[in-house]
């Protein structure tokens, strides 16, 4: 049995990886729940943003603030363009999954072409900086990630819950015809939401690049676990997503600590299977 300190350290690292899952999954959850679009290319957006951050900050040495300020609108536009494509060709849910898979392959090839398949590592002062709290080490970069994720998730929740636009989005997802009768233009809101979703993906990309070494093959590695969190949390439900992500993150971390790291995927995927079989209505 590992020591209490080790377990506490594991739980903490589980919370941090859960936060990253939540930030990566937010855009998928919103688009799936409110627009019925399954956007696999979201993972590609995250990694593309990660590589851009690596290039601009890590290699060219631009100011991080500037890079984030540029990346968010850039990916917002990409998200809008993607939604335009779906609307233009009236792509259904499964079609969106296939189209975005094709897009993912294209972006992955692009990344490999520019940055090769090798692992890239961005050295920043943040990467290794951690604070000791009692016996526990708290890494600073991950702590920032956690705070940003909390802020973004709560903001998304409040946006959907307490603004007219957010309520209109939810109403339109349930019944676009009746929502239209009350003045809601689904088309415009869909562009907005898709753009916002892609921008949150870019934000996740920043932390993917800062937190750890990055390689194109990780793109599919995170796919399963993030989708599990998205479904477990309830589609279009930011708070549920955050809770599910952190739960999965902790479960994975504890599995790694108590058994072998390679058993970790079993947790999230078994959970996903049970949810799908026992409570398919959640989705």
């Amino acid at each position, binding site marked *: 049995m590992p020591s209490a300190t080790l377990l506490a350290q594991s739980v903490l690292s589980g919370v941090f990886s859960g936060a990253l899952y939540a930030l990566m999954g937010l855009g998928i959850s919103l688009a799936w729940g409110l627009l019925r679009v399954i956007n696999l290319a979201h993972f590609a957006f995250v990694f593309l943003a990660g590589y851009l951050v690596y290039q601009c900050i890590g290699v060219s040495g631009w100011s991080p603030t500037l890079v984030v300020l540029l990346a968010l609108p850039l990916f917002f536009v990409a998200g809008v363009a993607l939604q335009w494509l779906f609307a233009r060709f009236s792509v259904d849910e499964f079609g969106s999954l296939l189209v975005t898979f094709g897009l993912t392959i294209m972006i992955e090839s692009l990344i490999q072409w520019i940055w090769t398949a090798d692992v890239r590592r961005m050295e920043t002062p943040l990467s290794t900086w951690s604070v000791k709290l009692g016996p526990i080490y708290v890494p600073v970069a991950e702590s920032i990630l956690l705070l940003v994720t909390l802020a973004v998730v709560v903001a998304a929740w409040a946006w959907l819950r307490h603004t*007219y636009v957010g309520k*209109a989005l*939810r*109403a339109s997802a349930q019944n676009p015809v009746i929502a239209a009768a*009350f*003045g809601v233009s689904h088309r415009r809101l869909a562009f907005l939401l898709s753009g916002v979703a892609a921008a949150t993906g870019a934000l996740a990309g920043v932390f993917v690049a800062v937190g750890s070494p990055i390689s194109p093959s990780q793109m599919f590695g995170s796919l399963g676990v993030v989708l599990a969190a998205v479904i477990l949390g309830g589609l279009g439900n930011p708070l549920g997503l955050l809770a599910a992500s952190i739960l999965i993150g902790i479960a994975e971390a504890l599995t790694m600590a108590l058994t072998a790291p390679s058993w970790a995927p079993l947790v999230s995927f078994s959970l996903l299977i049970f949810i799908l079989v026992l409570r398919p209505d959640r989705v």
Partner: protein
Amino acid sequence: MLSLESIVAGYGDAVALSDVSLTIAAGELVAVVGANGAGKTTLVNVIARLLPMRAGRLTWEGADLGRLPPQALGERGIALIPEGRRLFGAMSVEENLDMGCYRRSARALREEGLERVYGMFPILRERRGQMAGTLSGGQQQMVAIGRALMARPRLLLIDEPSLGLAPSVVQQVFEVIRTVNAQGVSMLLIEQNVALALQVADRGYVLENGRIVAQASASALLERPDIRAAYLGGV
């Protein structure tokens, strides 16, 4: 106020309305009655611009509505209480009411509108945070009415408000319809419950197989033996 001239509409290649003309004057409550499948809901959907019409002319307060998207009707003072309520079931009662005042000019009047709706249906104030989909049928109908009233309409389109409701609730709903009408809101009431509809209405139209087959003051229609007979097959 509202006028329909020779409207033709349908789904796919099926014609659901042919050559329907109808008018509603300011403050008037007009009932359209008829059997299931006669085209009543189609008529509402055409006026609400949810279904395109193939021919005819639709005007409201002198302006042509025929080319407008459904989103534009709220600005012009038309609101819909759809058949079967069609609430946003996974949203709370109050959020459903908020959708009624989604339009910018209505948002300023939100608090006042909520007070009005909660005054009319006190039970909704108690249930304001509850998911609309978990309410009883009668309460759902109240939310649907409240949602439409939040839009401050000058014309209300009401589609089958009695559908699936217990008699006592139906009575309450119709009292509200009467009250709102007395406050000056024009109404188009679609009902399969002929007696009930004609009792509250000023005038009535009878729709059969997509055509208007009779129109008169409500009391006159109610007296006509053939109208009663038509719905129970010549008894």
